[in-house]
């Protein structure tokens, strides 16, 4: 009897916490398709707000995807070889470098953005282009790619694979391309999902780095929260949910598969 009482009270508590997280998201989805949120859902269901968001903010969505995939390309090109090098080299210096590139995770995005503005804000061509935001996203997401690839190398005996291929006469570049990278695929995929998800949702850095002509989706969201009616802001948030939830589900599936292995 006592055990059941404890079980029930814990269940109720957990349900309340879940409600705290889910109810506002549900409200926002409902508000995004309601004719008049103040009068409630009885006022009718509509897609006019979604259409209005599309009209006003389609550009921000396109730019967000452009920046997310460009960030992915840069983190892949710089991060995967670096993860390999850091793993193979080992030792103090490698750990120090790993530590250094992980630093952006521990420093608020606002500080990194200020640093970039103070250093490169004077180069007005660069400052005005979307590349300026790209640079911020690369710095912020790089540690996720490097670490996720290094984690896979940690579970493989990469040295033996590498030496085996070397003894067959393969050049370092061919070994990297044909042996190392294929073996690192799970880490590369997990890292890529992280990088794209983080880039699509990044606000702290981007708010400082953007210009009126380089607005990303989260910037547009903040804009609509400040100046649009609640229904439009909600419809915009709904579009964001639709974009981000498949990525989240994919990440969760990855994590589950890793755990099962």
């Amino acid at each position: 009897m006592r055990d059941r009482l404890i079980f029930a009270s814990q269940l109720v508590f957990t349900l309340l916490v879940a409600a705290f997280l889910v109810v506002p998201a549900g409200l926002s989805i409902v508000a995004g398709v309601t004719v008049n949120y103040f009068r409630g859902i009885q006022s009718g269901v509509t897609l006019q707000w979604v259409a209005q968001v599309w009209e006003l903010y389609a550009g921000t969505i396109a730019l967000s995807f452009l920046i997310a995939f460009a960030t992915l390309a840069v983190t892949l090109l710089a991060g995967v070889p670096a993860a390999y090098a850091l793993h193979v080299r080992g030792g103090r210096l490698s750990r120090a470098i790993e530590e250094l590139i992980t630093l952006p995770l521990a420093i608020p995005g606002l500080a990194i953005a200020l640093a970039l503005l103070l250093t490169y804000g004077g180069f007005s061509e660069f400052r005005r282009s979307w590349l300026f935001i790209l640079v911020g996203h690369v710095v912020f997401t790089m540690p996720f790619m490097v670490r996720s690839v290094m984690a896979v190398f940690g579970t493989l005996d990469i040295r033996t694979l590498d030496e085996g291929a070397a003894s067959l006469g393969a050049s370092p570049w061919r070994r990297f391309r044909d042996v190392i990278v294929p073996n690192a695929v799970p880490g590369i995929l997990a890292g890529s999902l992280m990088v794209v998800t983080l880039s699509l949702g990044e606000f702290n850095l981007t708010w400082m780095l953007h210009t009126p002509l380089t607005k990303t989706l989260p910037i547009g969201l903040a804009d609509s929260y400040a100046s649009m009616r609640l229904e439009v802001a909600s419809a915009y948030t709904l579009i964001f949910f639709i974009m981000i939830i498949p990525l989240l589900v994919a990440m969760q599936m990855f994590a589950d598969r890793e755990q099962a292995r």
Partner: protein
Amino acid sequence: MVPRHNGQGRHHVISHRRFVWLCLLPLAVVTAAFFLLPMARLVVTGAEGPRGLAGYLAILVEPRYRATLINTVLLAAATTVVTLIVATIAGMFLQRHRFPGRSVLIAMLTFPLAFPGVVVGFMIILLAGRQGLIGDVSNHLFGEKLVFAYSIYGLFLGYLYFSIPRVILTIMAAVQKLDRGLEEAARSLGASPWAVQRDVVLPALAPAFVASGAIAFATAMGAFGTAFTLATNIDVLPMLIYTEFTLAANFATSAALSVGLGLVTWLILALARSFSGSAVAAAG
């Protein structure tokens, strides 16, 4: 045959070392140009104000900045404590019991993980804003509309929203690794359920508390998006840095303040990591 093979092997060793260095090059260039150099610039700028190096002390000496710092630390501490309590109760329950709908419940508790701070701010507006659910309910019940989204209480709620999913995941992973034999042993020795929790379970979870608590604390110290969405006049450090930089164009002060903020969050995470032994990163 043998000497030739040896010679070839040596050749490979040398070019392989060069190849490894080459692999590091793109990352080194990106990090140096877009992280190290800007950070150095930030630190230098912080000392270029009218007060020089003493500008770095302003955060402690100047009453207005000090009040903001205290405010921010208190808010972050409250967020951490409440998040840990909530997440431990829920996480322990979910990891220890199997019941229908459990995986749906876990999914509901972790799906806000990828929400940026701005979206979290909007969630709080929908809960406690002018057209919010809490205001509607309180209006029905007491005839008075309760609206607190745009205050520090709204920000506190936002940080809870942000931290609970992360901390629950860490706690659940830690509970899974607990040795249940120890609890059985304590119980068979006559310990009450409460004593088992206090003396066996909670101490074993300490590293998880430190690691996830540090993340919650550092995130709440440095997060900007939620505060920005809720109100520009909430008195916390990131908002102060933002207004100093954009409205007052006070570059030296905002640089000094953000170096200070970065040092604090980095130190907390580094301490937590040396204590708990696992990798810890802030988010948001």
